């Protein structure tokens, strides 16, 4: 079985503060992994390292078998670009381009990078907007969308680049509770289509439902990993239990 992502002993520190210490995991093509854990546990940093928004201090990241960083040494700028192009990312605060309409948000990158003919790009953007249920918003500016709609546009925008892997950094944390459902439905649909996804999330119910595996991160390491049934049903470690209990109380 080939691993689409391999991470070995990933380390990152800011001065004396160790944000990531020895994080290792493998992810298979088509797998959906939910990453949970308290804030400050390094979840976002780990995710952002995979797509080179953060530079790590040590360790190895391989994407599709090729080294993005090997034992702390980064590949050339061009190789990094080739690898990160295989991934898309969805941010907590959507990060839509406010000066572009919804459709232009989707089409900016493929047009600029000449991924396809103008007609091909147009066709794909319309298909994806249809897929996330926002075909009628194609010519609207992001300022006129709700949070849930913005996040669905952001997902469509990431899909425009036809990534093999999608990374989600707390995709529903900035949303009003009644708007999370529409975003989670889109992610669930992607899971059914076998998109490889890593989702950092606070939505325990969603993680349980959609993930093939769950990583519990705490203090810069993966403290426990397993299927949702194992991790939520029968957590092995004390700190996992404590975290899940706290989360339950909040819900």
């Amino acid at each position, binding site marked *: 079985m080939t691993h689409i992502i391999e991470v070995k002993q990933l380390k990152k520190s800011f001065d004396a503060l160790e944000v990531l210490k020895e994080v290792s995991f493998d992810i298979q093509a088509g797998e959906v992994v939910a990453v949970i854990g308290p804030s400050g546990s390094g979840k976002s940093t780990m995710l952002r390292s995979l797509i080179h928004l953060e530079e790590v201090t040590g360790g190895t990241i391989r994407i599709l078998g090729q080294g993005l960083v090997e034992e702390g040494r980064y590949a050339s700028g061009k190789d990094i*670009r080739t690898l*990160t192009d295989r991934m*898309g990312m969805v*941010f907590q605060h959507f*990060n839509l381009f406010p000066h572009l309409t919804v459709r232009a948000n989707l089409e900016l990158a493929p047009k600029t990078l000449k991924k396809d003919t103008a007609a091909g790009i147009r066709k794909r953007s319309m298909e994806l907007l249809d897929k996330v249920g926002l075909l009628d918003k194609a010519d609207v500016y992001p*300022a006129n969308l709700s949070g849930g709609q913005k996040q669905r546009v952001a997902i469509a925008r990431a899909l425009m*680049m036809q990534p093999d892997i999608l990374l989600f950094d707390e995709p529903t944390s900035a949303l009003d509770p009644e708007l999370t459902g529409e975003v989670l439905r889109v992610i669930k649909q992607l899971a059914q289509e076998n998109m490889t996804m890593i989702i950092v999330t606070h939505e325990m119910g969603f993680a349980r439902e959609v993930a093939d595996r769950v990583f519990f991160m705490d203090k810069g390491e993966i403290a426990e990993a397993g299927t949702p049934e194992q991790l939520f049903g029968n957590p092995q470690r004390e700190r996992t239990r404590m975290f899940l209990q706290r989360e339950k109380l909040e819900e």
Partner: protein
Amino acid sequence: MSWDYIFTVLPPMLKGAQTTVLMFLAVIVLSVPLGFGVTLLMRSRVKPLAWLAHTYVYVMRGTPLLLQVLFFCFGLPLLPVIGEYLVFDRFISAAIAFVLNYAAYFAEIFRGGLLSIDKGQQEAAQVLGLSKWQTMTKVIVPQMIRVVLPTTANEAITLVKDTALLYAVAVPELLYFAQTAVNRDMRLIPFFLAAIVYLLMTLVLTIAFKALEKRYSFK
């Protein structure tokens, strides 16, 4: 008030107004790109370059524009050795001073504009595969323009009025002809006419910038 008098003093004043407009256009067209260049230098990772750009802005903002205009018109030719090659038409000397001065203000305005743009914009562009240059031209600058438009409009209006400093170096522009007529005829009308022409110019600018702001509202 006699219409005859107005029609005798107005033509030379309008000719002076052409100089005013010409100066305004030359300064805007040159100082905006130069200012943006200085903004980029101020943000440069090469420390000496950033330091140089900051010093430039500090000097140009920290001394009177009139001093700078006088320096470029009358001071440059006095420089040892190179001075004799630096004798230009006075309009051009003054224009250089204006461009350098306004570029410093625009540089600060644009720097503020860039600071106001969320870091997430750059990150979103990066993960979509855009290069730094593509990110700057297609994502950052269009958003910066929206932010800086009101302040830029303010600067543009100030510039229209600052062109009256040309009076001090005897480049005949709108105010020069008004003042000459007032002195000669001992009548106030030329001053009022000059004021009206300035107001018309700033009105055109105000309307133009409002239209730009609307276009850049992204709603």
